Structures are given as structure tokens and as C-alpha cells.
């Protein structure tokens, strides 16, 4: 009985000491990202996963890679003009960029139409995507390397270029629950 008490006290002491040294652990325990509503199907990776170091293009033909955005949390989205749910969610990504750019988020929307710029540009104009650059991956090289099979697929990438998780399917990205999810990672990865 007395031994058990001592054991328990010892355990408490060890936990207390740990918390004193690493106070952020408790915070993390109490603050899990909430996956509901628009982002309920968000699939977080167990461990942060490296992303392929492949380049897509901007509209001037320059190579662009995930590493170019180091220091920012990225929402990388693959879309196409033939994909109705993709076209539907793009304006919400534009609004999300306007809302969270100051907090360190960068939305990277990559078009995979084989027609490239000529296919995609009218949509960018019509949807008034003034906060997003048009990026192109007409041969789907990057999307395939990232394991995209469903359109749309969006990835959350941390400040060091590692995949936090992905959402297959469309969402309203400026909804409260999506913003809360992204803010969680913006704070954590700070």
C-alpha cells in the first residue's frame, strides 16, 4: 500500500517535472485540430511527410517548387477546368488567401489542364482570382508524384515543406472550420 502510494507520487513528480521542462506538450494535448464541417474529411498524416522536390511552372514558364515557399504554411491545391467541384471551391481559396496571408499562409493553386495556360486563364479571370497566381502542371507530373488520384485534392504543407495532411474533394476554404484548422497549424508551426 505504502509502496503503491510512493510509486504514484513518483509518477506525478516525473510528469510535473516533464511539464515544467516542456510546457508546450500540455497545450498540444488540449488543442487538437477539430475536423468538422467543411474539413471533416481532412486526413492528417501520422508523421510529417516529405514532399517531392518537383517543379511546376508559373505563367511565364519559370520553375516553381514547394521549397520556394519555405517559411510559409502552404495550401497546395490541384484543380482543372473540367472539374466542377474544383472550379467551385477556387473562389473560397482566393478569399482564404486574403484572410490568412498576413498570418503566414500561402495558397498555391496548380492547374493540371493539358491545355495549360490557355485553358486555365479564362477561368482565373472569370472567377476573379486576384489573390492567387496561376500555376501550371499540364502533364500532372507534380500531382502524380504527390499521389493525387481524385480532383480536387488539397494539401496542407508546413513551413519546412512537409505534408501535414490532405483533403480529397471540395470545401469552402474560408469557412470557420477550415480557417480554424489552418490557424491551428499556422500557430503550431510558428
Amino acid at each position, binding site marked *: 500500500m505504502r509502496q503503491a502510494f510512493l510509486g504514484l507520487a513518483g509518477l506525478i513528480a516525473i510528469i510535473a517535472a516533464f511539464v515544467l521542462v516542456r510546457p508546450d506538450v500540455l497545450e498540444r494535448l488540449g488543442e487538437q485540430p477539430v475536423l468538422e464541417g467543411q474539413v471533416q474529411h481532412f486526413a492528417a498524416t501520422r508523421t510529417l511527410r516529405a514532399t517531392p522536390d518537383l517543379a511546376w511552372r508559373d505563367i511565364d514558364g519559370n520553375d516553381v517548387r514547394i521549397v520556394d515557399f519555405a517559411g510559409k504554411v502552404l495550401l497546395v491545391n490541384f484543380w*482543372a477546368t*473540367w*472539374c466542377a*467541384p474544383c472550379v467551385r471551391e477556387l473562389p473560397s481559396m482566393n478569399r482564404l488567401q486574403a484572410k490568412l496571408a498576413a498570418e503566414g499562409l500561402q495558397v498555391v493553386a496548380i492547374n493540371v489542364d493539358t491545355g495549360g495556360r490557355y485553358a486555365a486563364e479564362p477561368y482565373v479571370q472569370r472567377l476573379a482570382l486576384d489573390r492567387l497566381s496561376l500555376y501550371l502542371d499540364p502533364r500532372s507530373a507534380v500531382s502524380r508524384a504527390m499521389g493525387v488520384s481524385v*480532383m480536387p485534392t488539397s494539401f496542407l504543407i508546413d513551413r519546412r515543406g512537409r505534408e501535414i495532411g490532405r483533403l480529397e*474533394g471540395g470545401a469552402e476554404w474560408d469557412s470557420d472550420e477550415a480557417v480554424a484548422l489552418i490557424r491551428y497549424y499556422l500557430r503550431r508551426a510558428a
Partner: protein
Amino acid sequence: MLTRAPRAWPKWVALVALVLAMIATVNTRAADAQGAGSWVDYGQGRVRLVSATAAAAGDRLLLGLHYVIAPGWEIYWRSPGEAGYPTTVDWTGSDNLRAGDLQWPLPRRFRLLGVETYGYKDEVVLPIHALVERQDQGVKVRGEARFLTCNEVCVPHTVNLALDLPAGHATLSPYATLLNRFQSRVPQSDTHLGLTLERAEIVVTPKGEWLRVAMRSDEPLRAPDVLVEGPREFVFSTPATRLTGDGRGAVVDVPVAASVLASTNVSLVGKPLTLTLVDGDRAREVATVPVPGAIDAAVDGSLLAMVLIALLGGLILNVMPCVLPVLAVKVLAVVDHAGNSRRATRIGFLASAGGIVATFLLLAAVLAGVRAAGVAIGWGFQFQQPLFIAAMALVITFFAATLLGWFEIRLPAALAGAVGRPTTDHRLGTSFLTGMFATILATPCSAPFVGTAVGFALSRGPWEIVAMFAAMGLGMAAPYIAVALVPRIVEWFPRPGRWMLVVRQVMAVALVATVVWLVSVLAVQVSTLAAVVLAVLLSATLLLLAWRHRAAAPRRRWLTLAAMSLAVVTIVAPAIHKAETALTIPDARWVAFDPGSIAGHVAEGRIVFVDVTADWCVTCKVNKELVLNRGAVAEILADARVVAMRADWTRPDERIARYLEGFRRFGIPFNAVYGRQAPGGIALPELLREDVVVAAIRQAGGAALAARQ
């Protein structure tokens, strides 16, 4: 042994049965393999190649791409709608085969996330007609199929399909029925289905364009529908369908919207379309080009708005350059009343106003009638008729004779009674006719607001035409009505005296000038010979009238008769002489009107400027003198990067009328600018201004041209 024998027999039977069963199974498997490739499971369904025959016999094959689609998922028709893409197959790797295009069974409409698409669910076979190159050998079919399937997400797929057919006899495969079932659902373009397209027209509503398709069937329609395929600048959404009286006709209204790819507001008028007329399982494919149709019933309030616009348009007609030829008639109307009693003045001006409104109603009746007969007709149509020109020239000649005191015009008693109270005042008749001729001569040209009002009226029923024209008449008569209300205005003129005689003579000369102008129009419209004949006849008539005036009473009667006969000859003479030559464009800068070539010029980066004009359109001449032939605009039009196109509407021309209708205009002057940024054309206002034209050219994509100025 004997006891065991009965037990051994069933064992043997069982073995044989087993072997037979195995052979049977293998046989069915073999039959299965004959005429179908193996399934490729793509996650949201499976797909394979099938053949109607088990072996390659003869030079033709009917193949099919057989999809069995998981619930909720869709694959797309050849025109997928607002999203999606159709299946494409690359046959590289096939042997002894030349595959034709995929055939598309009638699709269904699906709506997902507010986007309308055409496609297939559950099961479909896309038939493929193929040719066998060497008939004594087997066929190896290899296809790489690219397709998209969507539910709430989209999944693009590329799958490799294979099917081998040995050379052999043409025995039907187990898939022949399936293939033929879907083959029979592919819409055909022949008429044996009993579905016919009556017309396809563009209807304009306050909310945008509709494509109105009228179709007929030889049997009662059950579920009529129309699928529309057209240029990618347009999106066609779910139509509203209504059956006509006997149940064999249907009118299908398809809303047309500009797609993401449309750069400016373009009209579907004149664009080639493929329509699939559908009734249940029957479907027929028809290629057509829609024509401009009615402007659809706007909301109630806007009829009132259009009436106000018509009133305003009528008022503006009084100050358009086109009024120049009848200025004399108008001045006369005022001067004539100098020294009259207020009551007489009031009645006289009301008579003129009545003449104006009556003329507008007459025009309305003619337009409604001709329109009902299905002929494209525009504002100012009367000036395209040589008979009308000749008649007008004659009437004005009589007018001039009246001014000179050689002749008096009397309104028929019945008409006089209708206009006002019966009166012996001959000037009442003159006033009424003055109003009529001022109107009929001053209205060949369109004007701001007039174009809108006429466009609205002509696209509606006869009652709207009458209402709009009555309003326009009231607008044009407004100055006369104003004087009738305040007759004191006329009292500002000096008392009648010698000055009036002088004015009348000056006006007579002005009217003769108008006649000269009309004769010159006829010279262009018919021929110089016709114009000369008319001029001679008119002079003769005038001389006869003068002679009659001075002649003694007994002679007057037969001189009157002679003048009248000559008048009849005058009117008919120019009509007998037919026009032989095409209207030529004397100005080298301008090319002949060819609406079909505009798109080509625009595609090559040129600016196209279209000017629709006519010899009788005075406003057009003013536009030319003040804007088109001088300064910045003239310089731009002379540039090699600009195609200046002129259409001459002096004579009736269905093609020009239809072209104008594409812009919902029915009168001239009309000008439009086309360019890369405005492939559908920018219509300019009736009265041109240099800055407006330059701005339109800049907007159409000719910024470099416009900037140089």
C-alpha cells in the same frame, strides 16, 4: 464384387458428369472470351471492349466501349456541358484494325453543384465502327482510353483495354444485343424518326438570350427535349418546354449564357449549332444556324418604359438631319397660320398632328402585315421602293403647285369629318396632308431611341407595333400639339401680307429641291434612265397644272384629267424599268459588305468597320461628312489593319436586314466595329461622333490604331 458394382456405377457417372460440367464451363468461358476483352476496374466502375461478332469476318466490325459505372458516378457525353470531358481512345498498338470515331448514345442531363452536364450513369456502351484491313487474319484491338468520372469529386483515368478477335465466321457474340441496344440510341440525322426542326431562333429577354427551338413530331410527343451544342463561348442550360395545341409540336426555350471563354457579350445569332431533338428514346441530330426571333415579353412595366422611349424617339425625329427635305413643308405649316384666328390655328395644328399620328399608324399596319408574312423589313422600308419614291416626288410636285396657287388639295369629306368637325376650310385638309408627308418623308432614318422603340415593336405582336408607333407619332407631333395648346405663338408672326407670298414661293422652290433629291435617289436605286423619265414626267405634270390654272373653265376639266393620267404614268414608269446593275461602291477605301468574312478578318488581327447606309438616308450622309470622311476616323479607316465595309441598303436587301436584326436594329444609320476584343461587334449610336468611334475601335482591340491619333 457384385455388391460393390452398384456403388462403382454412380461413381463413374459422377466423374463423367463432372468432366462434362467442366467442359461446359470451359466452353462458356471460351464464349465469354470471344467478343469481349477483360474488365478493367477503375475504382468507380469497370470498363472493357466488346464486339458484336465473336470473330473478325468481313471488312467491318462493330465494337463498343462497355462501361458499368458505380452508383452515383457519371461519365461524359461528347459535349460534356459546363464541366467534364468525354472519353477519348488512342488505338495505337492495335493490329489489322482501323477504328472510327466513338458513337454517342443519347445522354441524360445531370446537375451537380449547380453545374449542368450531359453524360451517362449505371451502364453505357459507346459503339465504334471499325474496318478490318486484312480480312483473312485476326484482329488485335488495343485502346488507351482517357476518361473522366465525377461524383462530388472527379477522378481522371487512363486505362489500357485489349480485345482479340480471331479470323473466322461471322457468328454473333453474346454482346451483340447489348451493343445494338446502345447503337440504336445514337441519334441519327435522317428523318425516319419523324422528328423535324421547324425553326431555331434567338429570343431576347431582359435577362439575356434564349434559344427557342420549335419541333414537330409525326406522333404525339411525350417528353420533348433539345440538347444544344455550339461554340464554346456559350453555355446552354435546362430548357423550359411546352407542347403546342395538338400535342405533336413543342417549343423548347433554352437559356443561353456566356461561358467562361466568352470575352465580350456575343450573340448566338448566326452561329452554327448542332441540335439533338429528343422525345423519350427517339432522338434526331440536326445542324442549324439560329435566326433572330422575337424579343420576348418583357415585364409589364417595361412596355410603359418602351412607350416613353417611343415618345422621346418621335420627338427627336423632328431634329434629325433626315427632316431636311421636309423642312419646307414644316415651315409652311406654321407660316400658313399667320393671321388666323386662334381657333383656326388650333384646329389646323391638330390636323397636322393627326396626319402625323395617322401616318405612323399606317406604317405600323404595313410593318405588322409584312412582318406577319415573314419578310425581314426595316424602318424606312418605304424608301426602298421605287414606286414610293415616284409617288412621293409626284405628291411634292402637287404640293409645290399648291404653294404657287395652281392647285388646291382637298381632304375627302369623310376623312375631314374624322379629323375634326366638318369644315369648308380647305386648309384643314392641307394641314392633315402636311403632317402625313412630313412624317413619311422624314422617317427613313433611324434616330436615337427610335431604333430601340422600333426594335421592340417589331419583335412583338401587332398590338405592340400599333402602340409603339402611335407613341412615336405623338412624340413627333408634340411640337404641333404644343402650338395647338398655345396658339398665341403664331401671333408673333406679322400680319399676312405680301411677305407670305414670297415665303410660299421660296418654299415652293425648296420643295422642288426635295423632288430633285428624290429623283436622284431613284437614279441610284433603279437607273439614270428611270430618273430622267421621272424628271420629264414630273415637269410635264407641273406644266400641265400651270396651264390648267391659267386656262378658261371649260378647258380646265380635261386638263385636270390629263394631269391625273400623267400622274399615274409618272408613278408607274420607274417601276417598269428594272434595275440591272449592282450597287457599286465608288469609294475605293470601302470593300463590299460581306458579313461572312468578318470573323476571318478578326482572326487575322484586323479591325472591321461596318457602315450600313442608303442613298435616301440623310443622317447617314451627315455621319459621313462629319465623322467618317474626315479627321481621325478617316485616317484609321485608311490604315491597312482596318477593313472598312459598306453595305448599301438603298434597295431592299434581306441579307442586310437580317444582319441588322442580329444587333436588334431595324433602321439605319448603322455602324459596328469588330476586333479581337469584340468578335461579336460593337454597335455604334445612330449619330456618330469622332470620339465615340475612336473609343469603340480601341475597345475592339485596335488600341494601337486609336492611340496613334
